[in-house]
Structure formats: structure tokens, C-alpha cells
């Protein structure tokens, strides 16, 4: 280890410093250096001792929390494909099929996003921030597996530039970058993002054909057309072997991730519970005033269908774009749940409401915080 460190400091680093040939790329070098090593930099001002937690460690735990959804999603991609062509395969074969389809999406997402991050770090001369380590994995998990790779790249570049860098980089963004990528894809290439053909990998090879009666519709699409009877069972929707975006189908896998986030204290339990409370509240309200079949389905069905669980656990809890005051988080989460159900059930144009609800509340989070701050100021003035 000492040898590696010496090698990097003495042989590689001088090229990137002030008078080296590659001094323009210092920030890139620094990013790899801090990835390989926790440097021996010491405190100079303020507290002499510091907590061992820092951003890389935090992001790393979010990545761990995403692994159950990722692994299940990969298996599900293969399982849905083989179901569609009527072939029975075992777990490993289905999983391997999924790996081959999902890994390119992940690689393209990280490559495009990190390229932009490195570019801006060099232009603005600050350290490369770790924010994209998580967004880079979130983006592939919320898109259909049939998304072309170039679309993923364009959407990621859009999300990182317009969603983050334009506002000042990690920590300054108003909107959730992963959801912005998804929204970009949804509005720019709607034919590739919705409908019944996109959720399952159905590009067939020689000799394969789709089974009779094959439908690639997600549960929400089924409900939107009113065919309540062809809805999968609640157990199937909870376990996740249904069509949908890669990472969103299995509520069970997402719950495992939620457990990791809450156990390590990285994810906000407050926001997660508020979103669920808002969703249940709206669902029960619809049950009460049901005027069509969609409103009659049990309220808890909404938690296991579509992107509700994934959005609750990984998207709504993004600390930068969520409400940043404690009281604000309750309001923020509750309204996300309410608006998601509103868009799903009442709006005929969108079968899924989670993405739009979260983006909408991201825009309103500063307003919520403003009122919480005002209340704090008023309390202070009373004390004076």
C-alpha cells in the first residue's frame, strides 16, 4: 500500500500539478486519487477531530441499498422475456439474460454522467463531487429495459447539466437528477417510454415467437384501460415478477433497501413514512368516493404497483431536492403521496404519477421550507 501511494505521489502526481504537462486534468487525477485513498489531510481550523462519516461513505450505503432492487430487476428482465416467448428457464439463466441487457445501460449512464461531472469540475476548479455515484445507478433502474443506449446517454447528459450543474453542482440542485432524466425521456421520446411493448425485452432471435395472448402491460396500464380482472395478484405485485421498469417492480427488494437506508440512518424515515401516509390517505379517500373501478381498488395496492415504492425509498428521500427542514419533510412527503394518487387515478393522460409528483414537490420544497423558516423567525421575535 505504501508502495502504491508513493508511486502515485512521486511518479504520477507531478504530471498533474501546476507546472506539469497534464495540469489541466488535475481534478480528474484528484478524483481517482481520493477514490483510491483517504488522503492524509489533517484539520487546520475549527474542530481538530472529525466524524469518520463523509459523502463517499454515505453514497456507498445508498448503493448497497439499491443492490436488492438491481439484482431482482436483472432476474425479472430475463424472467419476463422467457415468459413472453414461452420458454422455461432456471433462475441463473434468466438472471444472466438480465445482466447482459441491464449492464450496458448502467455503463452508459455512469460514463455519460461522470464525463460531464469531471468536465465541470475541471472548468469550475472544484473537487469532483460524489453525487453522481448514486444517480448513475438510479437512472437505469427507472427506465424500461428496451431503452436504446443513446437515449440513456442523452438523458443523463441533460439531467446532469440542466438538472445539476447549471444550478451549481451537487448540493445546489432543485430537481432530482435521476427523475429529470426519466422525465426527459418521457417527454422527448414518449413512444419508447410508454405503451405495452416497451417493458419486456421482446427482440426475438431465429425460431422464437411470442406466446398467444402475450401482453406486456404493467399493472397501472391494465388499470388505466379498466380491465381490473387481468390485474396480477397482490402477492405477485409485491414480489415483483411483473412487467415494469427495471428496478421498480419488486416492493420486497425495495423494502430491503429501505431497511438498509433506515438502519444506517442515511435515508429519511420521516419522508418515507409521510409519502406512504399521503398515498394511503388519498387511496382511502378514493375508496370512499369511488365513482369508477379504478378508485375502488384497495388503497394498499397503490403502494405495490408501479414506481410508488421505488420513488418513496430512493427518490423522495434525496436530501438535496427534498424539503430541508424537519417539519417541512412531513408536508413534502405527504403531498407527494397525495399527488401521485391523484395523477394515477384522476388524470387520464398519465398511468404513473410518482415521477411527476416528486418533481412537482421538488419545485415546492423551497416554498415549504420558507414557511418553516418564517415560523422559526416569528418565534424568535416573540422571545426578544
Amino acid at each position, binding site marked *: 500500500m505504501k508502495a502504491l501511494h508513493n508511486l502515485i505521489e512521486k511518479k504520477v502526481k507531478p504530471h498533474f500539478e501546476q507546472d506539469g504537462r497534464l495540469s489541466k486534468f488535475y481534478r480528474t487525477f484528484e478524483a481517482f486519487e481520493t477514490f483510491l485513498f483517504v488522503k492524509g489531510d489533517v484539520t487546520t481550523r*475549527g474542530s481538530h477531530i*472529525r466524524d469518520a462519516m463523509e459523502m463517499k*461513505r454515505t453514497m456507498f450505503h445508498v448503493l448497497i441499498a439499491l443492490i436488492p432492487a438491481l439484482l431482482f430487476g436483472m432476474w425479472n428482465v430475463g424472467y419476463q422475456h422467457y415468459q413472453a416467448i414461452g420458454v422455461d428457464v432456471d433462475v441463473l439463466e434468466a438472471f444472466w439474460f438480465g445482466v447482459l441487457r441491464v449492464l450496458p445501460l448502467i455503463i452508459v449512464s455512469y460514463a455519460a454522467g461522470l464525463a460531464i461531472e469531471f468536465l465541470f469540475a475541471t472548468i469550475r476548479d472544484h473537487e469532483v463531487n460524489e453525487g453522481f455515484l448514486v444517480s448513475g445507478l438510479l437512472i437505469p433502474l427507472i427506465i424500461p429495459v428496451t431503452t436504446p443506449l443513446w437515449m440513456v446517454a442523452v438523458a443523463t447528459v441533460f439531467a446532469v447539466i440542466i438538472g445539476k450543474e447549471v444550478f451549481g453542482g451537487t448540493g445546489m440542485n432543485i430537481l432530482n437528477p435521476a427523475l429529470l432524466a426519466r422525465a426527459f425521456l418521457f417527454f422527448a421520446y414518449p413512444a419508447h417510454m410508454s405503451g405495452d411493448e416497451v417493458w419486456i425485452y421482446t427482440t426475438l432471435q431465429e425460431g422464437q415467437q411470442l406466446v398467444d395472448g402475450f401482453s406486456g402491460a404493467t399493472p397501472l396500464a391494465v388499470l388505466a384501460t379498466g380491465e381490473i380482472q387481468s390485474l396480477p395478484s397482490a402477492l405477485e405485485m409485491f414480489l415483483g415478477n411483473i412487467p415494469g421498469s427495471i428496478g421498480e417492480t419488486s416492493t420486497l427488494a425495495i423494502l430491503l433497501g429501505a431497511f438498509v437506508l433506515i438502519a444506517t440512518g442515511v435515508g429519511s424515515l420521516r419522508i418515507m413514512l409521510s409519502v406512504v401516509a399521503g398515498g394511503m390517505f388519498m387511496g382511502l379517500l378514493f375508496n370512499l368516493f369511488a365513482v369508477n373501478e379504478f378508485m375502488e381498488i384497495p388503497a394498499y395496492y397503490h403502494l405495490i404497483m408501479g414506481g410508488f415504492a421505488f420513488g418513496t425509498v430512493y427518490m423522495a428521500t434525496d436530501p438535496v431536492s427534498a424539503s430541508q427542514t424537519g417539519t417541512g419533510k412531513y408536508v413534502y412527503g405527504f403531498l407527494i403521496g397525495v399527488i401521485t394518487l391523484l395523477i394515477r387515478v384522476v388524470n387520464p393522460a398519465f398511468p404513473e404519477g410518482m415521477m411527476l409528483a416528486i418533481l412537482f414537490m421538488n419545485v415546492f420544497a423551497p416554498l415549504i421550507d420558507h414557511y418553516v423558516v418564517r415560523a*422559526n*423567525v416569528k418565534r424568535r421575535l416573540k422571545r426578544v
Partner: protein
Amino acid sequence: MWSPSAGCSKRAFMTDSRKVVALTGSEVENPRYYRVHAGVRLDNIAGNNVLQEEGVTPRFISGDALTGEKISANGFIGFYDSQATVIPEGDKPELIGWLIPNMQRFSVSRTWPSFLMPWKKYRLDTNIRSGERPFVITGLYEKYLPMDILPMQLLKAIMINDIDMMENLGIYEVAPEDFALCEFVCPSKIEIQSVIRDGLDNIQKEFA
């Protein structure tokens, strides 16, 4: 209370500039109290009391580890300080140190195994572990500042030098030491105490 005119013995007319100073920290062999004069030189009291370990540089602090001033080995204990701390410098790089579980690291969060061993004593060093980042994690400072203040909003107001906002958010109620714990736990490694100090100085200049 000493008063030059109280009592009738000769001693009552001499002020005693001695005070009790505690020598603390993991690098001290025998942590103990000393009765010394104010402004004593550190090596006069701690000279042979510091652990010498191969490859470990000690950091000498006048005051405590959260709010004290760094001094050299033969530096002086500050007038207002009644403690001197000696801790190891954390100047050794670690290979992928942010990833590998390590029982010697302490964190208030549950991202390190330290929360499983609440009885364990740690040898905290001065390694900062990360460059400065923007505010990302929210809700953390409020847990470590038991006042009715919104710490992150106050810090942001100071950073943009918005005097009105600073006053509204309670800059008059705080001193940098109040934020020492917030600075300790901050995952973005922001120099919070310095920010508060700058805010207070700016306000003083503004209304001078």
C-alpha cells in the same frame, strides 16, 4: 473569592496567577491536573508525559479537541484555556479507507461499526477524511444543536452575508463553540465554526 483588601494576612495582598490546568488526550501517558501559572509553556508540564510512538506525530492543542487552538510542542497554553490536549495527527493515507469497515473509526452515524460498541474508547486523530463539499445531508445539525435555531439556514445566510437573514435566524444567540459538535459530525466537512466567527465579525463591522 480573592479580593486584595479581604483578610489580613500578607497573602491576601498578592494575586495568585496560578490556575488548574488539565492535561488530556489519548497521547498523554498520565492524564492529570497541574497547578500552573497562566500562560505556561506546554513542554514544562507535558514534556515527558507524551507517548512516543513510531510514525505517530502528536498534535498539541491549547483547549479541548473541539474548540481549541493548535500549538507547537513548546507552545503556550492560552490565557482563557484550562486544558491542554494531545492527540495523534491523522496524516497517514488509507487505501480505500472510505469503503473498508474499520473498528478503529468512530462515527455518530450508523455507517461505521462504532455504534455497535458504545463502550469502546477511541484514539481519535486529526484526519479530515474528505475535501469540503456543499451541504447535502439535512436534518443532522439540528440533532446536535439543542437550540431553537435552524443551523443550516443560518450558515447559508452567513455565507452569502445577508445581515437581515442572519439576525432573523439567530446569529445573536450563538457563539462558534455552540456549533463545535455540528462541525464534528458534518459529513460535508464544512468549517462551521469559522463560518459563524466570520458572520459575527461581519455583523460587528456592519454596526461598528
